[in-house]
């Protein structure tokens, strides 16, 4: 302790300053003055079982006058403090700084750190002789906090040991019945509460599979015993609601191996505030950065940014910990291309993270092509780009790829763009002839291609889907209502696709990390209550046709209460619409008030282009899963909204940024970073574009089932038929079974490696008599030229001197030039620079 916190001893304090200056640690620890404060500075405990957590902080002198900085930069000494109650008859204090009320009156506790003591006045009020225990307010939080109703314990499907509780106490009536009435009330003994089975189990006085959950002399024991002694009162049918939960500190900038006690404060709807630290569940969300104990003592363990989630009642909040990667960083050479670069720079500064340099032109060319249109540039395109000395050539290329050059003659990639992004969205929307029939599949596909070809604003795209009706054969988006065809499935997929919100949990119980309850779930589902379909009984080309219609009646009711649910957007007020509720939903979804839609699209495109979403998983947006860089998110969201949901504009903003154009080679200083884009994150080329790249490199096109020769894999419309292609199946072409982005997994496997290393598809293409190698051999060009062409066709760059020499040597020593070139092409296509977008 002495060595860790030396600044409190003058002599060592001086030494520390010297060390700190030598290490250029900046202002974090270099302090000569020890200004210790308690938070809160004075405490009021209300009611018999009230508890409160003290934080003992040292305010950083550099933050003088700046309350935000003061909060973020303070050091925490709570766990090093020695606490003592100066009035034990009024209040007691635990070694960790938790206050417990004893009797009414004014009291005082002290905290001592390394010889310095501060005193904290405590007022205790509202203690009565016969306290009542509120089931909702007092008992359930302690049951949740003790872990009794965790999914792996009594809240598992069949409960444990005969006791069934609801997950995270979402169903108080069930919990009451189980605890007070279940098993013929043998769990409680109102005559002699200490003999109650539930207390003996919880204290492990009798064998308990879950062990002891609290001690005999604990406050929690007293609460539970008192509840039983007062006759185990029922839950209040209209309990007090929590308006707000706050965690303090909300953000802390720290170093590795520092501790920080957390404290949570609940504000009820009537304005009453209560320290609920003792009944809060704390969970670390990134244990590589910060860990947390069950009592809320966080400890930083690694560099980066991590969060601790605090849950109380139906609320969840987070505390963010930032642990810089280095002592300092030099960002002088960072020249911002775009506004997001400035924001990224601030983050690098905060984290002291050294970004990579810019990638070279060839790398950029290949990256931009694969990211924007899912294809390799032609050889001519590559040569022209590499030869160009135009300083704006990267910007011009981005504009051409995205069809934003303003010159129709230059916007030649529009069809490729539309095909590639239709593929991406077809996976998410799950276009599949096995579900929709051939005609429905084509109608949806054609609508999607058209939408991306014309750069339909994303808001309009989604509105058309959500409000679609009519024939699934002639109106493409109407198929949305065949892919999912009941209100709950539609609610789940709509929320996940267009809000990035996973509602599934709330179908059966309160979402464990979110505000969403069953009310939210079924209120959202009610938007789809009146969608129906009529099937055609015809045979022939209109056989199997379905017409999506909107009925004038139809409701969704709450599964527990049976109440008819009003159509209600998530965490918003109910909406109505005279003819079609879905129109109201579409207007809300894409309206100005709802940033969730733009955030979701921005996050997806950030992930597609930068290799990682600002929020991960990219379709799991919620308040307890914050963006790695909130300012960056806000900027892009704002920009995207201003543009009228113009996706090409969004892509251009990202692709023109310095952030997007960084090298993928990690260095010593940023190799550990996986979240802040300090170097470009390499990605495997997905199944379809990869097959197209192989076709281009070998000049041998794959013939796809039911498609004319020459159709590229990214153009395939259907999940059902293209799952017959062994290459695509092996490389993880999605089955379009789930709206989750995770369906297209990023992992490579052994079968893929075998397929490219030893498979007949690749080998046959390389050896094809009409292929690139055959043409090269027939052309009689010099070896160096042939080698260069093979490099350009695969890696979009020429070989360097060493590579050229090595390749020349290999080809000339091969049994024949053809075999030499074949093996060279094979090796290039199996090399990482080919298989990855880098």
């Amino acid at each position, binding site marked *: 302790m002495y060595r860790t916190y030396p600044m409190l001893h003058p002599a060592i304090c001086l030494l520390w300053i010297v060390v700190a200056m030598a290490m250029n640690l900046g202002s974090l620890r270099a302090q000569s003055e020890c200004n210790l404060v308690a938070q809160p500075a004075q405490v009021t405990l209300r009611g018999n079982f009230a508890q409160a957590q003290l934080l003992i902080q040292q305010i950083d002198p550099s933050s003088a006058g700046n309350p935000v900085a003061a909060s973020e930069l303070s050091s925490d000494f709570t766990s090093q403090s020695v606490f003592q109650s100066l009035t034990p008859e009024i209040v007691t204090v635990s070694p960790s700084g938790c206050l417990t009320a004893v009797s009414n009156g004014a009291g005082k506790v002290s905290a001592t750190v390394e010889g310095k003591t501060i005193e904290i006045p405590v007022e205790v009020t509202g203690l009565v002789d016969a306290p009542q225990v509120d089931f909702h307010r007092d008992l359930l939080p302690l049951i949740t906090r003790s872990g009794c109703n*965790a*999914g792996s314990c009594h809240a598992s499907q069949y409960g444990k040991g005969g006791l069934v509780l609801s997950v995270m106490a979402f169903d108080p009536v069930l919990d009451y019945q189980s605890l007070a009435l279940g098993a013929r009330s043998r769990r409680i003994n109102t005559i002699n509460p200490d003999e109650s089975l539930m207390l003996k189990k919880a204290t492990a006085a009798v064998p308990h599979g879950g062990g002891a959950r609290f001690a005999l002399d604990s406050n929690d024991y007293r609460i539970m015993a008192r509840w039983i002694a007062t006759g185990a009162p029922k839950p209040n049918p209209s309990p007090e609601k929590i308006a707000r939960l706050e965690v303090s500190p909300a953000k802390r900038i720290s170093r590795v191996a520092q501790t920080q006690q957390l404290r949570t404060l609940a504000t009820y709807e009537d304005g009453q505030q209560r320290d609920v630290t003792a009944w809060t569940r704390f969970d670390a969300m990134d244990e590589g950065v910060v860990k947390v104990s069950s009592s809320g003592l966080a400890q930083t363990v690694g560099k980066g940014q991590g969060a601790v989630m605090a849950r109380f009642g139906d609320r969840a909040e987070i505390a963010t910990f930032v642990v810089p990667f280095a002592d300092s960083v030099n960002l002088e050479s960072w020249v911002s291309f775009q506004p997001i670069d400035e924001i990224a720079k601030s983050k690098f500064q905060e984290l002291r993270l050294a970004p990579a340099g810019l990638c070279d032109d060839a790398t950029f060319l290949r990256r931009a092509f694969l990211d924007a249109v899912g294809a390799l540039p032609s050889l001519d395109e590559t040569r022209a780009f590499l030869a160009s000395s135009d300083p704006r050539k990267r910007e011009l290329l981005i504009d051409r790829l995205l069809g934003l050059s303003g010159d129709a003659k230059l916007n030649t990639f529009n069809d490729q763009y539309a095909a590639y992004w239709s593929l991406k969205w077809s996976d998410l929307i799950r276009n599949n002839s096995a579900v929709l029939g051939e005609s429905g599949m084509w109608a949806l596909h054609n609508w999607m291609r058209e939408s991306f070809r014309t750069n339909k604003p994303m808001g309009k795209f989604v509105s058309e889907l959500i409000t679609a009706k009519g024939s699934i054969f002639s109106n493409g988006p109407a198929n949305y209502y065949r892919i999912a065809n009941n209100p709950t499935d539609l609610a789940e997929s709509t929320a996940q696709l267009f809000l990035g919100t996973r509602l599934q949990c709330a179908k059966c119980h309160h979402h464990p990390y979110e505000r969403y309850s069953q009310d939210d779930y079924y209120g959202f589902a009610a938007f789809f209550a009146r969608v129906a379909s009529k099937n055609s009984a015809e045979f022939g080309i209109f056989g199997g046709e379905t017409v999506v219609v909107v009925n004038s009646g139809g409701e969704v009711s709450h599964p527990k209460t049976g109440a008819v649910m009003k159509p209600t957007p998530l965490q918003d007020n109910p909406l109505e619409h005279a003819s079609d509720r879905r129109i109201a939903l579409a207007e809300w979804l894409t309206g100005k008030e709802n940033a969730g839609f733009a955030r979701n699209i921005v996050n997806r495109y950030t992930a597609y282009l930068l290799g990682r979403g600002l929020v991960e998983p990219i379709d*799991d947006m919620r308040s307890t899963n914050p963006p790695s860089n909130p300012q960056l998110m806000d900027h892009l969201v704002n920009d995207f909204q201003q543009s009228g949901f113009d996706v090409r504009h969004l892509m251009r903003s990202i692709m023109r940024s310095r952030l997007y154009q960084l090298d993928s080679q990690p260095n010593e200083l940023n190799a550990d970073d996986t979240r802040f884009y300090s170097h470009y994150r390499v990605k495997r080329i997905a199944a379809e574009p990869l097959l197209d790249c192989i076709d281009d490199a070998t000049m041998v096109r794959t013939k796809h089932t039911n498609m004319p020769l020459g159709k590229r894999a990214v153009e395939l419309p259907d999940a059902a038929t293209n799952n017959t292609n062994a290459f695509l199946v092996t490389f993880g072409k999605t*089955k379009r079974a789930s709206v989750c982005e995770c369906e297209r997994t990023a*992992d490579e*496997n052994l079968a893929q490696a*075998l397929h490219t290393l030893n498979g007949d598809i690749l*080998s046959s293409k390389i050896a094809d008599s009409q292929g690139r190698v055959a043409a090269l051999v027939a052309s009689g060009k010099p070896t160096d030229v042939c080698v260069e062409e093979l490099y350009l066709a695969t890696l979009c760059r020429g070989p360097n001197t060493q590579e050229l020499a090595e390749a020349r040597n290999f080809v000339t020593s091969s049994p024949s030039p053809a075999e030499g070139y074949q093996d060279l092409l094979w090796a290039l296509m199996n090399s990482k620079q080919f298989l990855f977008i880098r």
Partner: protein
Amino acid sequence: MALSHPNPHPNRTHTRRDWLGSAATSVAAGLTIPAFLAPTRLHANGGQARSNVNCIFIWTQGGTSHHDTFDPKPLASDGVRGPLSVIETAIPGVHFTELCPRMAKEVNRFSLLRSWNPKNAGHGVADHWCMSGRNINPSLIYPCVGSVVSQQLGFKSALPPFVQLGAHVDRSFQGGLPGVLGLEHAAFEIHAEANVDRFSVRDITPPLNMELTRIDRRRDLLDKIDRMQRTADKQPAAYDALDEHYKTAFKMITAPETKQAFDIATEPEALRNDYGRSSFGQRLLLARRLIQSGVRFVTVSDPGWDHHQDCFNGLKQHRMPQVDQALPALLIDLEQQGLLDSTLVVWMTDFGRTPKINPAIGRDHWASSGFAIMAGAGIPGGSIIGDTDADGGQPKSNEYFTENIVATMYHKLGLPLDLTVTASDGRPIRLLEGEPVREWV
């Protein structure tokens, strides 16, 4: 689902690739694939895995009729009984139909469950449920047992831990797939016909009759090209993961045990004949060779059991003779090779079939009864578990469900019954709910 697990890590989206990347440098080549699994392996409190037991899982796709094989009802009415006669087995009082003469004779080598209640009559759903122990769930794909074995126990030799022979597993509801465990743990599928003299396997047997010397030359060139592309010591973690897979793949292509495992022609003629010169028989023999070469879990799939029409001829002429020939041959062979105690043999099918024979002389899907067979790995031979009512439509005693059969497999393979893994989005997923079949453990 354990949605309220206290440790959600939603921000920590290490993909498997990241794990692999970090593990790759520290572990010897070829054995590294499962190294990153250490955090989840044996996580649950089921004790140490008994990793020496392997599994051959026979899947007769479509739904093998229990009435016309192992649970005949000779006293039922004409419309239920069917035309097949009933024969004695080696156990007095236990009868099979005439389609299973060899199984009847060797009944003491396996155990028969007659009181399986599949609770499902849909294809596709069946493949998923029977192979994973879980009903389908669109938001969460549970892994099949073979993938769990791959993830938990990993490679034992150059050959992958999980192999599927034949393409006859219905994938429409993600049957027989790794689900949340990721593609890495998918079965290595071999579709090639095994009942041939020269057996070759796509992606393993070198293409276009390429010589091994040329493969070596290509590998050397690839090494050089990769090395020249590498400009610094550090490289993205994803590259390390790819390196590992390539190493494993090369090892598999060139390892002698690979060639040996697939060289089915080296088996004695008499043994090949004892398994029967059928697709199924030779696949079963190949399965034994794969187990011997270090594969942990082999699915042997067989098509064409969905007998809605012409059920009795279909079974008698086409499907049942090859299984009746091959399965006892496998059990005898395993015993003679000393592999029986360490090899669990399971036969499952989609579900049972209707008691009532339909107008097309077929039987349709039946959701509430069917049979399952297990042998080896300590399964008591000759035990007949449970029975069904007079029409074979409902289990009458010792009713067991699919999860019980799958739990038995977990138990025998040394997988904890409460095994919990972490999905890629951080959710803790308990893979199985259910207890093993009591008579089998």
